[in-house]
């Protein structure tokens, strides 16, 4: 198992390097004259030259990449260089902050958003998926599937807007202010306010995800329920609740874990739409803002961050499934 993890991490490093190479080249193509984009509006030639020198923009791109990887120039006292500890992702001229610091400051928001949403959507999907699979084709199944399908079909920006219209705006007109439509309160300040502020964004994400996961759970459960060992469980006189939630769900969980890891990673890497709608200052917003304004060190930084999250999440998923299968496949 350990050698497996080590080998996987080695391969992940290679993946990261490729991602970096591609984004580096792309940003060089997309932003023709970075110095001009990055400089303040009425900067003179001297400032521009300063930026060009600081970022080594006058050198060929592959040398710039080398600078980016190895310890490059110090910009405003912030180190640049991915391959030293702690890894430094460069400096944002726009925000006058080192990129690493910038991203890390946004992580709590995005992480709160993703983790809360995953709890909600997994709970709902598991329960409704099992309920649907109990009697496929029954009224319960049809209703659940139809509702889930609607949730899946609606684009997130629409569910987000609908949620904030009805649960924030409409309620507020009656003087009920249960759900704020935007803002973020750190968990450490007030857990209650934290959850209250995040509830609508959580729902916006969860509604779409339930549509996917309810179907996955249902299909996987249906397959498992026809297995002989389910009949054995019933032959033992096991209560139906345990047959479904312990025996059947245990085996049906593999595809759910795999897909769950991918979806969670996608949100952790930045839930652009939801963060924008609900005014959450997370990684997704940082990514989209920097991309639009041409703050390319941040673009590279957020891209790398998203890749790292993906790699870690798939690694975790693979280790978990391997540990589970370890029981049933190998000795």
């Amino acid at each position, binding site marked *: 198992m350990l050698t497996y993890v080590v080998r996987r991490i080695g391969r992940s490093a290679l993946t990261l390097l490729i991602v970096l190479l591609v984004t580096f080249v792309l940003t060089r193509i997309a932003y023709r004259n970075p110095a001009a984009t990055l400089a303040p509006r009425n900067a003179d030639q001297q400032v521009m030259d300063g930026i060009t020198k600081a970022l080594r923009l006058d050198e060929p791109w592959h040398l710039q990449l080398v600078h980016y990887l190895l310890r490059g120039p110090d910009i405003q006292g912030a180190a640049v260089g991915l391959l030293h500890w702690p890894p430094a992702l460069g400096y944002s001229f726009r925000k006058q902050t080192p990129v690493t610091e910038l991203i890390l400051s946004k992580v709590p928001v995005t992480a709160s958003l993703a983790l809360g949403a995953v709890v909600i959507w997994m709970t709902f999907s598991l329960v409704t998926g099992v309920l649907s699979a109990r009697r496929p084709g029954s009224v319960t199944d049809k209703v659940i599937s139809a509702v889930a399908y609607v949730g899946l079909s609606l684009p997130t920006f629409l569910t987000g807007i609908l949620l904030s219209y009805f649960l924030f705006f409409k309620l507020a007109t009656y003087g009920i202010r249960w759900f704020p439509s935007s803002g973020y309160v750190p968990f450490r300040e007030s857990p209650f306010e934290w959850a209250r502020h995040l509830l609508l964004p959580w729902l916006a994400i969860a509604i779409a995800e339930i549509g996917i996961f309810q179907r996955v759970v249902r299909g996987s459960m249906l397959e498992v329920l026809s297995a002989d*060992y389910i009949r*054995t*469980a*019933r*032959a033992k006189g*096991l209560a139906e609740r*345990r047959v479904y939630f312990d*025996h059947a769900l245990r085996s049906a969980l593999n595809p759910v874990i795999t897909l769950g890891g991918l979806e969670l990673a996608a949100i952790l890497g930045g839930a652009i739409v939801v963060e924008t709608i609900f005014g959450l200052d997370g990684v997704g917003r940082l990514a989209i803002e920097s991309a639009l304004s041409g703050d390319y060190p941040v673009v590279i930084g957020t891209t790398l961050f998203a890749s790292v999250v993906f790699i870690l999440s798939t690694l975790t998923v693979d280790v978990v499934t391997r540990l589970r299968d370890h029981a049933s496949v*190998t*000795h």
Partner: protein
Amino acid sequence: MSVFAVEDLRVTFRQRHGADVEAVKGVSFAVEAGRTLAIVGESGSGKSVSLLAATGLLNTAGAVVQGRALHHGTDLVGASAEELRRLRGSQIGFVFQDPQANLHPLKTVGAQVAEAITSHRREPRRQVRARVLELLDEVGIREPRRRIDDYPVQFSGGMRQRVMIAMALALNPGLLIADEPTTALDVTVQASILDLLRGLQRDHGTAIIFVSHDLAVVSDIADDIVVMRGGVVVESGDADEVYGAPAQPYTRELLDAAVRGPAAGPDVEAGPDTAGGATLGDPLLQVSGVGHHYGHRRARADTPPAVSDVSFDLRRGEILGLVGESGSGKSTLGRIVAGLLDPSAGSVSIDGSTYTSTGRRRARPRLDPRTRGRIQVVFQDPYSSLNPRRRVRDILAEPFDLHRDLAAQELEVELEALVNTVELAPSILNRFPAHLSGGQRQRVAVARALALSPDVVVADEAVSALDITTQSQILALIRRLREERGISFLFISHDLGVVSELCDRVLVLNGGRVVEQGRTEQVFSAARDPYTRLLIDSIPGKRRGLVRAGAPTGEEGRVHV
């Protein structure tokens, strides 16, 4: 009062399209405490369905159950789900056919046996665990303390079935329903499981309902017999009567199919004259010094080789039996002969030209198309060896598409001739495997193997998954193909009974080595190796005279060596 009695039970499956299917049409039987009732019949006879229906385990939508199923006088047919649940496990224990499929793969055996107790009783953990250990010990699992937290995959087939039995007996139920409990197991394991059930019955006075397709298997354990066919009881009565003087021709047929031992039929004698014109005794396939070791080089030091130093010849038109238990290396050897696996040592050649290589190993060896056409395989389970999404026509046409260039009309002629050879109607070509019976599927699998007129067919447990009557039909088909076409068969089986009935020569494999080989009657009547003798002794049905004497009759005319 009977422990369990079924009276005029009817099970109908309502179909969304088409007419309802009546699977069980008014069946009655009863079992008394301390006695064993054997229900015998082919698959589709309704024997399992009636028991599952009576205990509320029939998990099919649209199944309608009528009649009465009395457990100590209480009718179970109208009982609520909760009442039935309370009875199952505590009063009625179940053991099913395939212990691999019937144990939860992601739960330890200890947890699964414990559940049988905790479903019905609240008991402290420590007490449950102690009881589980006791049960595992009782069903003959060695070192239960060490095995209790292992997963099913870490157990052999026989040990898994013992776990199933421990689960069924956890609360000492008065009735044990065993549905084909030994069918997926090796013959020696089968004998030990039957012993175990007999012993447990003696100790606890349990009533047993034992379902099987094989009259020989139940012959040692049954007190009463019920023979079922097509959803009705054909014959029932005391075991001595049924075995001694069966009243119905169908029972007679089942009994004949259950008889094991070297066949001394004229069909074998006719062999040399009709074996495709070739003289029997002409070596066709030569296996010399073949060995195989699975796994990486590093792991090999710890594990014994799957096959080591096996040599034999297969002659033209000969049926050679390869017998051994699971793990004996017989399937590995079969795969090597079929060119599906490269050996680690030795070589296999057909007509003097070697087609295996031991050099740089690829995941799958590539035979040249001509040799591939000459050596074909029939696998064990026709339910999984045929692609369920393809019609029989497409399955059978594939070999022709790959190896010969035929016009549509010529192909049609070939396909019809092919299904004709395996005694199927041409209409079967348009059907999917799911619409076929087990026997029909295996005939399709044989037909697929025959498509390119092979010289050698490797039949890997080709009849092991089939009903006993279907088995004898497929065996007859193999015999006929040998006679008409001179095809040589390498017949791999764990069932010495079947092998002795069909094969000219037998090779007994144990731990990857050949421990005994020779003419079938010779091996059967005078086995030198103790392992071979154990295999022969484990053939069920001795008590009822269902095993033919090994002494050859009329063997003088036979040519094979």
